[in-house]
């Protein structure tokens, strides 16, 4: 499986579109995906992930799914606590900003997930079909845990309930969970008529989405100075730690090599859609520069270029 190489990952159209977006931003191009299109693409991608996951889930025996599901839930609870501890103890970052960042690193980036799946699939090793269900499981708990940490001691400017509503009724969760349920109900046969739209078009839509994400991420890069060296290191090392931990734990629940690698990519990834919205509402005192720059400007590019091949290589080594 020497194919899990860094290079073959880097020259996928999706990653190159991300790079093109960064370059376009650096040369001050007028290129921008219209907001409506970017929103539309994110709705499409999330619903597609959910539905495809649901279709697969409808074929999966509970006995196969239960182990990965429980592990994912546990990691969703543990990883924000790890992240918080590291930020407070090693980074000396104040409580509210630590909790805000922890919410992001405990939750999951759907795009990182998709790219991890594509990477394995392109290598000829598609992961388990039910993985999208794990994305839905991983999305929420970390945000809840991190907000609990933030609210447990102090009086806060924001509203804990409003933040929770923002996650639970936010479009990420509605589309992922709604899609999962729809996919489970309709099964493969019911999915067939919409398959050309949601499956064949998926990778191409992702190219456009990452073009814009590159433009946005480039805008974050100029804030690297402001976040300081600790947060830069944190944004690379914590994902590696979470990824390694996940691969190691995956040994015990019967995931395939690719499944373990994809779960590692998910756990190591930092949310930049659901978490920012919830944190902005619940913890307005937290500085968005910290959590957005680290999750979108550092961890996301790191994971999709270097992180994912590492997790695959490690999974191959431990589980292969």
């Amino acid at each position, binding site marked *: 499986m020497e194919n899990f190489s860094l290079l073959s990952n880097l020259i996928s159209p999706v990653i190159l579109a991300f790079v093109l977006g960064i370059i376009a931003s650096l040369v001050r191009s007028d290129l921008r995906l219209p907001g409506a299109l970017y929103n539309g693409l994110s709705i499409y991608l999330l619903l597609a992930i959910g539905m495809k996951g649901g279709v697969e889930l409808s074929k999966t025996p509970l006995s196969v799914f239960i182990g990965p599901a429980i592990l994912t839930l546990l990691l969703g609870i543990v990883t924000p606590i790890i992240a918080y501890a590291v930020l407070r103890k090693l980074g000396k970052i104040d409580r509210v900003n630590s909790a805000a960042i922890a919410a992001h690193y405990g939750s999951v980036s759907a795009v990182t997930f998709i790219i991890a799946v594509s990477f394995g699939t392109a290598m000829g090793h598609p992961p388990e079909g039910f993985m999208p269900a794990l994305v839905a499981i991983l999305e929420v708990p970390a945000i809840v845990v991190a907000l609990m940490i933030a609210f447990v001691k102090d009086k806060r400017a924001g509203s804990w309930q409003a933040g929770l509503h923002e996650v639970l009724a936010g479009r990420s969760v509605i589309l992922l969970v709604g899609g999962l349920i729809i996919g489970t109900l309709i099964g493969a046969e019911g999915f067939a008529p919409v398959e050309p739209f949601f499956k064949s078009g998926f990778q191409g839509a992702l190219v456009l989405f990452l073009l814009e994400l590159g433009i946005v991420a480039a805008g974050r890069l100029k804030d690297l100075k402001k976040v300081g060296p600790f947060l830069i290191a944190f944004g690379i090392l914590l994902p590696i730690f979470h990824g390694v931990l996940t691969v190691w734990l995956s040994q015990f629940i019967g995931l395939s090599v690719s499944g373990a690698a994809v779960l590692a990519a998910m756990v190591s990834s930092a949310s930049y859609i659901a978490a920012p919205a919830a944190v902005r509402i619940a913890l307005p005192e937290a500085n968005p520069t910290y959590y*957005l720059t680290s999750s979108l400007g550092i961890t996301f590019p790191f994971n999709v270029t270097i992180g994912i091949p590492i997790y695959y290589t490690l999974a191959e080594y431990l589980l292969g």
Partner: protein
Amino acid sequence: MSTKLLVPLKLVTIVTERILEDRLLRKITELGAKGYTLTQASGKGSRGIRSSEWAGPDTRIESLVSAGVAEAIVEYVAESFFEHYAVIVYVQDAQVVRGEKYI
């Protein structure tokens, strides 16, 4: 203008993060605003970086209200949002047609 149709009111404009929109609209309605007009906006201010590119662009809320209601809205926004959120609020005079509807 001398038209008898016109009533002098206050035009309150609020530009802020999209994420606050619902809460703000509910509150200004409570405070006595009879309506509002929304436009999508973007912008730059003292808070260099904001999550607005993720939470969607900013929102620009305009409401024609009586002077008293304007004052209440201004105070509410200043107290509730100025510290932690990207927000700007200003008040202007406006002559409103059939303005008694909005008082």
